């Protein structure tokens, strides 16, 4: 084993040596859906990489999230996709690997810097091959307007009932919309509501694995409960929230018109720019005082190598750098709220980001429930979750109906759930 490792290292080193020459004028293009990050890549990350890797140029070429999958697939099929591909977690990227678009990078040294759960998002089911380097996870929770809380004399809620008490107080005061979330774009309902508070009820990983192995069903109470809580949220959401889209919610909150924003940590960067008030964050409230808290610490972004790249050495060099402690430090701080998955020690400077990453210590972590394996067939569980979660908000489905729809969709094709 040790011998093998050495060999691998030697091969990689050799690659580097020869690649170093070849890569003199290599240009790498990165495919990504994170258009918002353009400035950070251009101004911070790429210069840092290029400084340590002379001769390799990197070009960050994002596509808007709504078109990313379609455009990327078309480009991969047509052979024009970039050298490096930012990977969505689990099955989306797994399919790309199976079709031979993403290279097997199991032998990449840098992968050792990551814990297993992080690597799992970009491995085959049997963990035999890795195809993307984990970049970051995002943590779900609630960001609030601290000035408003102070003004109304309320504090971060710890339990569900405290949470609703806080919402009531804000509602009665009338200055602020209690919850900044809408159902128009649907995905927030699934992402920022159901998979945000759900782990608290289904005990995180335990509940997620139970669905995968077929020992639990979506119709079981622990999966229906979050819908019931969401149903109660509707009373505290903005007027006409049915037509309130994602950017509407962002504006509502950052303009100081809403008090609490159910969210993911990826918002921190943007909010820091836009909001003119103090912000705080709290994790999903628990049922009863003293219960274990669960957070969705979702492995969200990885990066892999296009098998069709003309510069595999340069691309591998870049991936090694992504896996390095330097990148972890740079990235986490350039994009507060995107937390590196690296084992390397890195400092989080942003206070809000600090607050959210600290939940990793207090709470149990899990990932979004539908992402691994469960969205492999048709109907797609994650698509379904968007629709039914929005339906619960819109009063178009009862929690029981919503859960039944999820279960019915899953049973239609997922064998472990079929008996």
């Amino acid at each position: 084993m040790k011998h093998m490792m050495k060999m691998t290292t030697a091969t990689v080193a050799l690659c580097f040596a020869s690649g170093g020459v070849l890569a003199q004028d290599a240009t790498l293009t990165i495919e990504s859906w994170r258009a918002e990050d353009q400035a950070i890549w251009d101004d911070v990350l790429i210069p840092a990489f290029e400084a340590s890797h002379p001769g390799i140029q990197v070009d960050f070429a994002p596509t808007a999230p709504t078109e990313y999958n379609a455009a990327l697939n078309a480009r991969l099929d047509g052979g024009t996709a970039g050298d490096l591909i930012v990977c969505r977690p689990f099955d989306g990227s797994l399919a790309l690997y199976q079709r031979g678009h993403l290279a097997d990078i199991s032998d990449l040294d840098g992968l050792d810097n990551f814990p297993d759960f992080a690597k799992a998002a970009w491995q085959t089911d049997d963990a035999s091959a890795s195809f993307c380097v984990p970049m970051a996870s995002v943590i779900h929770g609630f960001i609030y307007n601290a000035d408003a809380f102070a003004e109304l004399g309320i504090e971060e809620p710890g339990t569900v009932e405290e949470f609703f008490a806080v919402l009531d107080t804000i509602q009665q005061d009338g200055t602020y919309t209690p919850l900044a979330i809408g159902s128009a774009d649907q995905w927030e309902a699934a992402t920022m509501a159901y998979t945000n508070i759900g782990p608290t009820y289904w005990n995180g990983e335990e509940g997620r694995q139970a669905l995968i192995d077929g020992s639990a069903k979506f119709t079981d109470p622990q999966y229906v409960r979050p819908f019931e809580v969401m149903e109660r949220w509707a009373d505290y959401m903005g007027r006409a929230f049915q037509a309130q889209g994602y950017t509407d919610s962002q504006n509502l909150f950052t303009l100081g018109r809403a008090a609490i924003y159910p969210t993911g940590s990826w918002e921190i960067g943007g909010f820091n720019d836009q909001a003119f008030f103090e912000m705080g964050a709290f994790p999903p409230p628990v049922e009863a005082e003293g219960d274990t808290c669960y957070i969705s610490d979702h492995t969200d972004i990885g990066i892999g190598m296009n098998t069709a790249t003309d510069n595999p050495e340069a691309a591998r060099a870049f991936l090694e750098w992504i896996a390095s402690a330097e990148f972890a430090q740079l990235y986490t701080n350039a994009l507060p709220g995107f937390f590196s998955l690296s084992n390397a020690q890195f400092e989080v400077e942003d206070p809000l980001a600090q607050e959210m990453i600290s939940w990793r210590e207090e709470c149990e972590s899990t990932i979004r429930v539908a992402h691994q394996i469960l969205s492999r067939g048709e109907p797609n569980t994650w698509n379904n979750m968007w629709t039914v979660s929005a339906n619960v908000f819109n009063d178009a489905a009862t929690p029981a109906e919503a859960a039944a729809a999820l279960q019915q969709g899953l049973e239609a094709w997922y064998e472990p759930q079929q008996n």
Partner: protein
Amino acid sequence: MTNIASTGRARAGRARGLSTKAAVHTVLLGYTIIAIFPVILVILNSFKNRRGIFSDPLGLPRGETFSMEGYATVLTQGDFATYFANSIIVTVSALFLILLLGAMAAHALAEYRFRLNTLLGIYLILGIMVPIRLGTVAILELMVDLNLVNTLLALILVYTAQGLPVAVFILTEFMRTLSRDIKDCARVDGLSEYRIFFEVVVPLIRPVLATVAVFSMIPIWNDLWFPLILASGDATKTVTLGVQQFIGQYTVNWSAVLASLSIAILPVLGLYALFSRQLIAGITSGAVKG
């Protein structure tokens, strides 16, 4: 002719009475407001800062709300000059090819009897029924083979293929109504079939060409999909794609978003104004008559 018609109408107009006139103008004015209000709203708000946009969306930009910050962001962040140049090159070239090749094909279909005439006519307008986007993957593979990815030529070719059916359809219909004598006369005068097309037919169909140009221009200028797939590189990006990505990048910065939207609207209006007079002439000459 025009004079006769308008006096006839003027006479009728007097007889019709004031109340009818008022009703006509009320309806037209009402709908015109509905049509342009949203556009004006966007342009108006693009000159405000973020707070101004939200606190008083319907107000004019005033002292404290007036701001060019949106435009500043757009102009410094995006390479809009390049995007514009790309859009214009693509749109104008594709239009040129659509009009030229479409008119040539329509001329052949309308002027000459030959076997397969009807069949080819049907074949050429079949494309109206199917969105060309369905063939994306094959198009991309084709472009890869031709080494045209990330070139403006790729876009030009696809848009030309996309625009031809409608152009051939409209132009053939119109060319069938052209006098045969004038082409025969040119033949007797010794012009080759090619020169007859360019020197006799093309001048005769100019207004109709303008009509086809306007109808073909809209989907080309506004297309998002093929620039994304075929030419998303920074050097070949079009305005619509640039604006769309800009919106993605500055979701919350509405002054910037509105400014970029305004920037995307203006050139189309300009091109439209350019073709507009000919468009009306073309339409009234029966170019788009069923």
